[in-house]
């Protein structure tokens, strides 16, 4: 049994396999099928200052090797999370990380402040990359100044580990990554979804109620791997890789490219046990390659 634990800033994960925000509920939905305590971490769904109903149906369409979604951050708000959900999940033996979203900087700060006292929240993930909300979200994540303004405000409001989730919908992701690092991010996660669109040609209408949505799944994995590779070389903080990871092999692509940890997103919809299988795969891989620790693989690409 190799050593699978990795460090994200001051946060120690038992292994590098986490679940991505918005794809794993609060973990409870999966408890029948996997032992949640085996996960490196669970990133709970995007949490906002006020409750949100999200976007109208239809919110989803299958695409080649992927899907578009336009959920629009449906959630019951941070107060409900703190009062009702946190008590149910805080005793899990895995890192509970809360994804923080908002329309204004004040929104982000308010959620961070509300979460700051919770000692079983292992970290926050500041989402400056949601493509499915009219205000805020991705617009903060596509410019250095936008990213910096949100991240530095959240930094003042949150004392623990702060991860910043980046959008891939930019010309140069390393520029945004460096801006987030300078503004106080302890780690960067990328990529969020790609802005996409699908059309029902018989009806001549968009497939989603919002016209555009976020593309995820293995279809975009090659782009996400490239961006993680670029960012890992450009910053000093740990990088968390995600984007179309379906199994342990895919996870290792990101780790070899420079990611310290990974998130499984869309994979949870296809195989709810994908994370657990991947942890086994990575362990076997390390044994097979005669390695003691997964840390030896981080950025180990021979290029």
């Amino acid at each position, binding site marked *: 049994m190799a050593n699978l634990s990795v460090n994200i800033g001051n946060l120690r994960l038992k292994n590098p396999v986490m679940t991505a925000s918005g794809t794993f509920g609060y973990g409870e939905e999966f408890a029948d099928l996997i032992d949640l305590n085996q996960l490196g971490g669970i990133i709970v769904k995007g949490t906002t200052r006020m409750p949100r109903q999200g976007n109208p149906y*239809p919110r989803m369409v299958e695409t080649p090797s992927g899907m578009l979604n336009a959920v629009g951050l449906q959630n019951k708000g941070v107060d409900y999370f703190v009062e009702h959900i946190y008590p149910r999940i805080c005793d899990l033996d895995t890192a509970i990380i809360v994804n923080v979203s908002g329309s204004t900087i004040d929104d982000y700060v308010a959620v961070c402040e509300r979460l700051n006292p919770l000692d079983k929240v292992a970290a926050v993930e500041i989402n400056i990359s949601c493509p499915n909300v009219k205000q805020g979200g991705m617009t903060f994540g596509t410019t250095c100044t936008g990213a910096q303004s949100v991240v530095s405000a959240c930094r003042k409001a949150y004392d623990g580990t702060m991860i910043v989730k980046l959008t891939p919908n930019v010309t140069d992701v390393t520029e945004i990554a460096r801006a987030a690092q300078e503004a106080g991010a302890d780690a960067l996660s990328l990529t969020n979804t790609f802005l996409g669109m699908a059309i029902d040609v018989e009806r001549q209408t968009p497939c989603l109620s919002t016209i555009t949505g976020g593309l995820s799944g293995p279809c975009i994995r090659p782009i996400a791997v490239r961006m993680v590779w670029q960012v890992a070389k450009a910053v000093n903080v740990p990088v968390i890789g995600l984007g179309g990871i379906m199994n342990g092999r895919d996870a290792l692509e990101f780790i070899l490219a420079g990611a310290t940890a990974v998130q499984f997103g869309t994979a949870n919809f296809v195989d709810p046990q994908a994370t657990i299988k991947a942890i086994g795969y990575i362990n076997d891989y390390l044994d097979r390659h005669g390695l003691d620790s997964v840390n030896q693989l981080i950025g180990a690409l021979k290029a």
Partner: protein
Amino acid sequence: MTENKKHILDFTVRQNLRFGTNYALLKLMPACGELPPCEPGQFAQVLVPNSKNTFLRRPISICNIDRNENLLWLLVRRAGEGTAALCDLHEGETLNVMLPLGHGFTLHRDGTMLLVGGGVGVAPLFMLGKVLKEQGMQPEFLLGARTQADLLMLGHFNDLGTVHITTDDGSAGVHGVVTKHPVLTSGNMAHIACCGPMPMMRAVAALARQQGIDCEVSLENLMACGMGACLCCVEDTADAGNVCVCTEGPVFNINRLKWQI
């Protein structure tokens, strides 16, 4: 309704009964162990093998749990590439299935239940009728289809109770859609359980509301995960706004829905 534990199991295709070119009744046996408890109206998420352009699982209503033979029945209509791959499965092939999912139909013990189905929507009504009959109730069925050839599993339904029929072309039963059938307006029905194409369910719901008959419908909103994680399959409800069809449904009492009927 009890909360049944979810399972992910490999099944072996024991039989693939084809009804014409468009429908298949798959009889599946767990590769090991017994079938888990399932309620009528719950569904399964099927991982489609051998299909180039099918990425997500496909939600399929549970048609029957045959405990004697330890077989799960799934009735599949050839709608797209994913369901086509399911219809073309060979005996002996393996299928990965997550089940049971969602909340099913209410099992009423008072008054007569009419089970109204259209096309492949008859699938969950077979299990519902079977369970009702096992509990001593006498369900009746109203089954609609385009033509006589599209009436699926008729022999099975006849074994469970009275079957009323409509066909769009008049080739069997009453000529027209299900809402043309007099049984719906006979005043003898206390409850309706309905599953079929959306226009049919809306028409049945409208008639039920008009007649003051309690009515449940089974929705099939597009879904990704089937377990309440992705929040894609939402239906707007009167009491709680957007809720997941996969976990709060697929069966809803029409009073919860905001349908303009």
